[in-house]
């Protein structure tokens, strides 16, 4: 919005220094693909933006023995183009492929999609399903880390303080896991999810040793479905499982009617996405 002051940080340390006073009206901004709009329509209150866009210290993808680390300022298109990442995280890749448009993916960042705290965020359900963490930095505290699902406190609300920056995302190795991502929208590009879902299963033969399931657009914040996870853990991948999971999803997911879909439709989609993923998992195990 015309009128907002923008300071362009020249380094990560510079950005932390500018944010140190913890003024809630001073906001960090990277790709700005959502911030420009939210400021314009008055949904975001800020007098000053600290631009951290294009800081090389925040833009990298590193494969390490225990997992992948990527800079919070990594543009989504860079993550999508990273061959090593693509090979190990197919559900995140699917979320990235369906993320808005090439132009947005070139500008929007992984960290931005998290801190924006939209219940419909495309990248967040896969990250929760992997058990990913974010690393936060501030001048006062140095470094702290949070599981991705603990970042969110409500619609657009996070546990991140005004003097903190998300600097890195860590994703544990998930190569041998079954992964699924589903997104439903009115078209295939540039669309906000009616609902989305990500599932990551650690399998022992055809038995689910560990399950992580997250949904978007079904609650005020991205939602990790602990009861669905419990219902899947220890079960064999058989046809009955998909039938049994319906009641659990129905009980756990409580979407609301909104512009993108009715409560009933969203619940139906969430059930379908969950069952479809389990059917695919079973087929993969048999193959």
């Amino acid at each position, binding site marked *: *919005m*015309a*009128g*907002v*002051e*923008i300071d*362009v940080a020249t380094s990560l340390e510079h950005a932390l220094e500018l944010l140190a006073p913890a003024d809630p009206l001073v906001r960090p901004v990277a*790709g*700005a*693909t959502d911030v*420009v*709009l939210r400021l314009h329509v008055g949904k975001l209150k800020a007098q000053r*933006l600290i*631009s951290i*866009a*294009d800081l090389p210290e925040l833009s990298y993808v590193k494969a390490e023995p225990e997992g992948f680390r990527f800079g919070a300022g990594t*543009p989504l*298109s860079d993550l999508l183009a990273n061959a090593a990442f693509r090979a190990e995280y197919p559900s995140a890749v699917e979320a990235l492929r369906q993320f*808005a*448009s*090439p*132009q*947005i993916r*070139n*500008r929007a960042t992984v960290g931005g999609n998290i801190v924006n705290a939209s219940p419909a965020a495309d990248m967040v359900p896969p990250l929760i399903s992997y058990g990913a963490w974010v690393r936060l930095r501030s001048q006062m505290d140095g470094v702290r880390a949070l599981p991705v699902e603990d970042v969110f406190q409500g619609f657009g609300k996070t546990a991140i303080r005004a003097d903190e920056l998300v600097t890195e995302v860590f994703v544990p190795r998930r190569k041998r896991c079954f992964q699924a991502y589903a997104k439903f929208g009115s078209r*295939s*590009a*540039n669309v906000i999810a009616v609902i989305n879902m990500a599932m990551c299963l650690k399998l022992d033969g055809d038995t689910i040793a560990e399950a992580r399931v997250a949904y978007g657009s079904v609650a005020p914040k991205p939602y990790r479905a602990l009861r669905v996870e419990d219902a899947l853990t220890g079960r064999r991948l058989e046809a009955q499982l998909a039938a049994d999971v319906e009641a659990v999803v129905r009980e756990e997911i409580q979407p609301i009617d909104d512009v993108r879909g009715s409560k009933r439709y969203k619940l139906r989609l969430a059930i379908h996405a969950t069952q479809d993923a389990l059917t695919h998992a079973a087929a993969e195990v048999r193959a």
Partner: protein
Amino acid sequence: VSHEELTLQINGQPRTGVFPKGTRLLDALRRLGYTGTKEGCGEGECGACTLLLDGRTVNSCLVYAKQAVGRAVVTVEGVGARFADGLHPFQKAMVETGGVQCGFCTPGMIVSGCDWLDKGGSLEDADIREALSGNLCRCTGYSKILDAVRLAASRRPPDPR
């Protein structure tokens, strides 16, 4: 609203202007006379304001002008600069196939299409559609635009590798 002076590198030329603080790159360009870049939706949906920022397509309605200082901006006026007649093969192909109707989406479509072709993008139908998925056209039904991508690609000199 207070103002600030910004210098942008546009199509290889430094251009300086005084803008209200918080000005979007789109508005800064138009005020500097680069009116090829259009505002369609102003919300990052339609892609009419697409340009290249450091060699990547972006929606200029979603970038603050100040964030573009020190970076290379290429607008629709600049995509054909390296060709003898000043037109990129995709621009010529769009004229030939009739990929232009009302013309409002055209500048953004040109920037995305030229970028795809210049980067050696795939010519599979689904891939071209994906490459242009951030550009909406309400006139053509897209088929002539897709034809133009293929026509321009067919005239691409063979890859020396």
